[in-house]
């Protein structure tokens, strides 16, 4: 058991898979010599050499196209899009190409690749370098979407993503890179499409993703002191979505709160709310409450960014308000 930072866990997960499978290669801007702008690929060039760890031009379409073409023809590439905001300049490759080609060709083509990307706010980078864009990807049939919230999950879900035969968008939360956690020694394996109950409780279910998971856990701790026992679920994987774990939890608690860093409209929590409203309506003991960033771009000033992204205080307040309403 080792204490790793989240960013070290990214490199650990990639190294684990590259050591296991010669077909795994890594490309991206500044990921080789520099070890990544977020230092998530430190040491990989030294360990695996320039044939497998490759610095690319600032050409996001070329990067993802290369990953896709290589995946179609026998490799299992990992590509990095430095900031998830940059998906906007290569979204065609993601949405029209990677996601659809298997379907359009009636299964002739298999595209086993991972696109890893620094996602999320809290670093005062402003509106073009802080977005949480999992929802963009979730809206596209054919893409798998994961967001780990702790170092152990980073390693395990990276392994699961690399071993998946479908395109996986792997969102690393920039605000968590410095966080630490235990990672077991030896190979770490995990599965896509499985949520984790981080804390048990019988009064309310709180579903959270990425950086919102530690905040939800802290909020749950405070709410417990006031007598509200929350079950905190780390959603982890938006596609495939572990709706069952959430439905079962709501079956026990009768309440669902989602904590979402993304802007309000059509966030993943809206889909969860729809599922729970549809399939667990008679279990509900109160309205489903979504705690999200409002529908605004992210401001850069620390005071403003902290205002809009759900905080521990806001989670506590929203849960208390709803439970007493």
């Amino acid at each position: 058991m080792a204490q790793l930072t989240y960013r070290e866990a990214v490199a650990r997960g990639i190294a684990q898979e590259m050591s296991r499978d010669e077909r795994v290669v890594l490309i991206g801007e500044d990921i080789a010599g520099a070890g990544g702008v977020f230092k998530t690929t430190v040491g990989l060039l030294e360990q695996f050499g320039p044939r497998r760890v490759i610095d690319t031009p600032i050409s996001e379409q070329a990067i993802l196209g290369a990953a896709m073409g290589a995946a179609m023809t026998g490799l299992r590439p990992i590509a990095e899009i430095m900031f998830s905001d940059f998906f906007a300049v290569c979204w065609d490759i993601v949405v029209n190409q990677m996601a659809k080609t298997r379907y359009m060709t009636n299964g002739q083509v298999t595209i086993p690749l991972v696109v890893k990307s620094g996602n999320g706010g809290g670093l005062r980078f402003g509106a073009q370098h802080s977005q949480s864009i999992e929802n963009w990807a979730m809206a596209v049939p054919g893409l798998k979407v994961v967001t780990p919230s702790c170092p152990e999950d980073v390693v395990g879900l990276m392994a699961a993503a690399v071993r998946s035969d479908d395109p996986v968008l792997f969102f690393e939360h920039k605000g968590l890179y410095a966080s630490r956690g235990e990672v077991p020694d030896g190979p770490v394996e995990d599965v896509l499409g499985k949520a984790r109950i981080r804390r048990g409780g019988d009064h309310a279910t709180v579903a959270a993703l990425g950086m919102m998971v530690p905040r939800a856990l802290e909020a749950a701790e405070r709410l417990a002191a006031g007598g509200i026992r929350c079950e905190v679920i780390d959603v982890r994987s938006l596609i495939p979505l572990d709706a069952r774990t959430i439905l079962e939890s709501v079956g026990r608690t009768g309440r669902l709160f989602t904590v979402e860093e993304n802007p309000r409209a059509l966030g993943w929590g809206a889909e969860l709310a729809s599922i729970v409203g549809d399939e667990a309506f008679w279990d509900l003991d109160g309205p489903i409450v979504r705690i999200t960033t409002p529908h605004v771009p992210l401001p850069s000033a620390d005071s403003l960014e902290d205002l809009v992204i759900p905080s521990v205080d806001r989670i506590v307040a929203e849960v208390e308000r709803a439970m007493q309403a």
Partner: protein
Amino acid sequence: MSDIEITMPQLGETVAEGTVTRWLVEVGAPVTANEPLLEVSTDKVDTEVDAPAGGVLRRILVPEGRTVPVGTIIALVGGTAATRHQDSPRVRRLAREHGVDLTQVTRSGPHGRATVADVRAAARTSVRPAVRPAVQPAAPPEVRPEARAAQSQAGAAIPRPAPVAIPNPAPAAISHQAPAAPRPVAAHPAGSGTRGRVEGLSRRRRLIADRMHRSLQESAQLTTVIEVDLSHVVKIREAAKDTFRSRYGVALSVLPFVAEAAVRALAGHPVINAELDLAAGTVTYPAGVGLGIAVDTDEGLVVPVIRDAGDLTVGALARHIAHLAARARDGSATADDFAGGTFTITNTGSRGALFDTPILNAPQSAVLGLGAVTRRPVALRGPDGDDLIAVHPMAYLSLTYDHRLVDGADAARYLTSVKGRLEAPDHTWPHSLGIAEIAS
């Protein structure tokens, strides 16, 4: 706050007018939201009309005994702001499951809401409150908040039908929560408080009594019983029930399987789905099947109808039955829900009875009773011809029919068809229940 106009409610698509039979609140007296304000009767249904909001009954515009068209303003309510109890779906479901009357529970939640704990506490004490007969205006007003909140905001009067057309005095309700623990029957006052008293009959009870008696007087009723092996049905139900419940929020009982088999078999036995009019010298064969489902409610037995049930799948029937039963019980069913029946099923077994002899829902020519499913030893012929004894889930189906029209052999042939379908089920069953979905 301006006055709210109370209008003669539309009690069904085919109902054009209604008669004010009794005002339950005097002019000037306070009224509470969702509490009965008056009783209305039509040719199809008798019902109470609830106040859409709290306040004071300012004026009565239509006196008792007067018949007016639907939409006519019959009273004005004004005054204080409304107070409403909005119980959560979970509370309402738990109340249904435990047979708890939400109008009677202690309400410890915010804004007067009942909580899950309130319902559980009420269920533990298992005191089933007596239902106030509708003909006793002196009794305390009944509060039935369920399924009303949204409607009442519109300001229109809320109909609460107390439909009639009731064939069967046996407690024959639909168990839509499986496994159903038998719950107390509430159609009659319970507990020791009624001993040594004389009470007036409720309107509902009076109608039931009248219908039952007339049905027996006017036709020649005979009951034929057959035994069916429900092994296949039970197996499919077990496989499908969790998925079905999670997908539709409805528990899956054996009843919809029997209903499906019964309805399908009608196609080949038209005389079972017919109406005799001896005076006119005619037999009427309806174009489709209007499947009446006997439902046990707090106020007594009612028979809502699934229209055009002839080609519904097991899954669809299960959902229809559950929803109709829920509507019948929470009072949101309308007169249309009770119209158009051509054949009736009663789930005699839901309270444990092995079989009974149901009474015809006149003028229908037959009613089918489903007895309790019990595991019992049956003699089987083994593959090599040996006699074997095995334990199978078995049930009795009892068909009461109008012997003026239907012969005993007709009835037996029909029951044999139903039995055949239940014992060798169709491959469409799993599919309609969502357990063999393609490429899911």
